[in-house]
């Protein structure tokens, strides 16, 4: 049914028609008409953040923990430019996000007006697509199209830039149509011949491995179920990227742990020595592959991906399958079953016994002490004390992120929010807020570092205002831990600016925000302190003071292949050679 209304009314109506219940935003001159309409209704909840970057990461946390797109509303100029980091983050990690930005009125565009920026120009490389709407009659269909583009194919962030006069003007509202407008409609079904080729390879493989990624999570809960069925049926070992944790349960029999630069010994060696690698919704990121020319030299490689440009981008694959993970796995299972559920049992048995010898290395072990809290110990206790809860974990970026990925077990998809591709410090605090908004009764914890936490700590104000009981668990080593680790390995232990001098008192900081502060530096007190955090009905900043010089192991040094990992307590002198030093 078409109706006459103002552009601002259309924005709110379109969001309602798209099933949006929450918007993360910050008002300003160029979006005042939209905020006026938000004021007049109660269907959409607006979460007022303290910085537009916070809005984007909160929307990411909301999106990743629900599978629905996150919606952001910002003003023109600085509002839009502050959203750029979060949009880039969402682009790298394929998170569906719709950013609505205000713009100066159409007749002022190009005059360097107050709070004018070329928003579509600035966000073109960091969005999947964007639009500047100059005509109120086209606004509704553009917003509907924005939702379609953000959520179909490989998900990603989109932006709709709306000049203020377009918000005031009256036009015709069109509800979302069931039939597709525009030609954008990515292929979801995989090629059956290619899937059959993969099944044939699976039937004979002696040393197969599943290497899964964020694409499984993005494909929906059903894809994770199909993956579990496939792993249980075939008995193949499975590893996952940082983004894919939870698609297969960490307690599952075939789980090797995360792979990559700080992945487990058994996962990385399985990748290196396999004869059939089945990449499901991952993208051969450089954190995963290590040195390209020495990456898994003996394997045939299959790659299931919805984005054709991900296939053969970095690693040449033998069996490319273009399609959505859920659809492809459904067909794959069907074909594998119809051909008699065959695997190479003898080969697999030998393969698993090899993997067991790698597992016996116990690569995540560390030297514990009762004098101070080791960060790994803090993660183990956090895992032990919270795993029974309805739990969502966010992280910032750095050593703490890797320890969280190594030591926390994820049993389900959509429970883990982390910045993988872009590696955005400051992601976790707002992401935890977004997840808590979506799941008000769940236990939402942000595992943070002392430096990352400070990058978006203003969002604690948002947590207090909206009574979001997020738990900020800071592994405080008074260092930029990962930078410090690289300086130790690569720059002759010259710790240039990686010391967090003049840190705030986190307990007082919590109190200043109206939250609870907890301090703990003694391993003997840690369990009680964590329980106090869990049991507090409100936001908490937990200052967990840990060993200051702990390095994160295992580690594949830059420029090295998988089978040259460093394990804990190993000599790290000369670990990174000149060739690797230029890599990040």
């Amino acid at each position: 049914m078409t109706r006459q209304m103002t552009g601002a009314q259309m924005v709110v109506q379109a969001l309602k028609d798209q099933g949006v219940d929450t918007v993360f935003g910050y008002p300003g001159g160029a979006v005042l008409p939209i905020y006026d309409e938000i004021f007049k209704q109660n269907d959409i909840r607006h979460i007022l953040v303290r910085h537009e970057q916070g809005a984007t990461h909160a929307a990411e946390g909301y999106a990743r923990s629900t599978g629905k797109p996150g919606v952001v509303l910002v003003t023109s100029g600085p509002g839009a430019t502050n959203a750029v980091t979060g949009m880039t983050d969402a682009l790298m990690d394929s998170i569906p996000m719709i950013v609505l930005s205000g713009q100066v009125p159409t007749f002022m565009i190009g005059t360097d007006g107050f709070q004018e920026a070329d928003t579509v120009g600035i966000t073109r490389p960091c969005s999947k697509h964007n639009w500047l709407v100059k005509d109120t009659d086209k606004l509704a269909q553009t917003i509907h199209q924005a939702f379609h583009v953000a959520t179909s194919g490989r998900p990603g962030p989109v932006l709709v830039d709306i000049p203020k006069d377009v918000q005031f003007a009256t036009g015709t509202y069109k509800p979302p149509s069931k039939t597709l407008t525009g030609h954008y409609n990515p292929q979801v079904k995989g090629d059956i011949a290619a899937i059959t080729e993969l099944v044939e390879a699976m039937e004979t493989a002696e040393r197969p491995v599943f290497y899964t990624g964020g694409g499984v999570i993005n494909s929906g809960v059903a894809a994770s179920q199909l993956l579990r069925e496939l792993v249980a049926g075939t008995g193949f070992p499975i590893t996952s990227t940082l983004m894919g944790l939870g698609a297969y349960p960490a307690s599952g029999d075939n789980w090797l742990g995360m792979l990559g630069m700080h992945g487990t010994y058994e996962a990385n060696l399985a990748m290196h020595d396999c004869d059939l690698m089945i990449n499901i919704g991952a993208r051969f990121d450089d954190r995963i592959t290590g040195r390209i020319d020495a990456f898994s030299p003996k394997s045939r490689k299959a790659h299931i991906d919805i984005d054709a440009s991900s296939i053969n981008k970095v690693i040449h694959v033998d069996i490319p399958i273009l399609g959505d993970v859920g659809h492809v796995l459904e067909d794959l299972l069907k074909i594998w079953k119809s051909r008699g559920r065959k695997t190479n049992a003898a080969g697999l048995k030998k393969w698993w016994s090899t993997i067991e010898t790698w597992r016996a290395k116990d690569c995540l072990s560390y030297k514990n002490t009762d004098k101070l809290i080791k960060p790994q110990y803090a993660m183990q206790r956090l895992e032990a004390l919270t795993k029974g809860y309805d739990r969502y974990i966010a992280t910032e970026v750095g050593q703490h992120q890797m320890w969280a990925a190594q030591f926390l077990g994820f049993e389900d998809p959509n429970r883990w929010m982390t910045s993988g591709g872009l590696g955005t410090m400051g992601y976790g605090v707002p992401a935890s807020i977004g997840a808590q908004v979506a799941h008000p009764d769940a236990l939402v914890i942000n595992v943070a570092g002392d430096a990352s936490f400070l990058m978006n700590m203003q969002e604690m104000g948002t947590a207090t205002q909206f009574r979001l009981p997020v738990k900020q668990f800071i592994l405080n080593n008074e260092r930029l831990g990962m930078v410090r680790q690289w300086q130790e390995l690569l720059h002759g232990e010259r710790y240039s600016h990686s010391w967090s001098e003049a840190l705030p008192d986190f307990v007082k900081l919590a109190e200043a925000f109206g939250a609870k502060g907890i301090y703990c530096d003694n391993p003997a007190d840690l369990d009680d302190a964590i329980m106090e955090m869990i049991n507090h009905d409100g936001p908490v900043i937990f200052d967990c003071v840990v060993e200051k010089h702990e390095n994160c192991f295992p580690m594949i040094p830059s420029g090295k292949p998988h089978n040259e990992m460093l394990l804990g307590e190993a000599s790290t002198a000369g670990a990174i050679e000149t060739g690797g030093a230029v890599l990040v």
Partner: protein
Amino acid sequence: MSALSLKKGASRKSAYDLKSPLSDVLETHTIAVLVDNEAGVLARVIGLFSGRGYNIDSLTVAEVDHTGHLSRITIVTTGTPAVIQQIKAQLARIVPVHDVHDLTVEGPSVERELAMLKVGGSGEKRVEAMRLAEIFRASVVDTTLESFVFEITGAPDKIDAFVDLMRPLGLIEIARTGVAAISRGVKAQT
């Protein structure tokens, strides 16, 4: 010489694809991209090339379907087979892109470019310039007593040859359109 002893990637016109996807031989391809004629679409395509470090040897763009609001971008680019493959995949995933066609591999095609050359001079050189223009079937579109403006159409290497000949004869200025290309035969590529 047998076809199979050809160096991989040596032949573009072969009935068999002998090219290794892992080859590091640089190839030049002409790619036609059909896009919605909307604001910013050219910036998106150019941004893709600059952002990912691909080469643009030539680029032309114009609306080709006024009612359907479609434009055709013709890009000549150089890269290894893997890079060319990646360029096509990256182009295809831009939302307003309808179709990507690699005219270099999708059967025979015609490539044309238009150039205008301003040549100044008098006496023998002027006569020689005029004679060469006739050989190249370039036409004179402007003249003064000391200059000609020649218009020439053809494949890029023909224009290159003409430019080289004009240089010693008083070449002052060149304007080139870049390559437009289309497949031969009755079938449309859209």
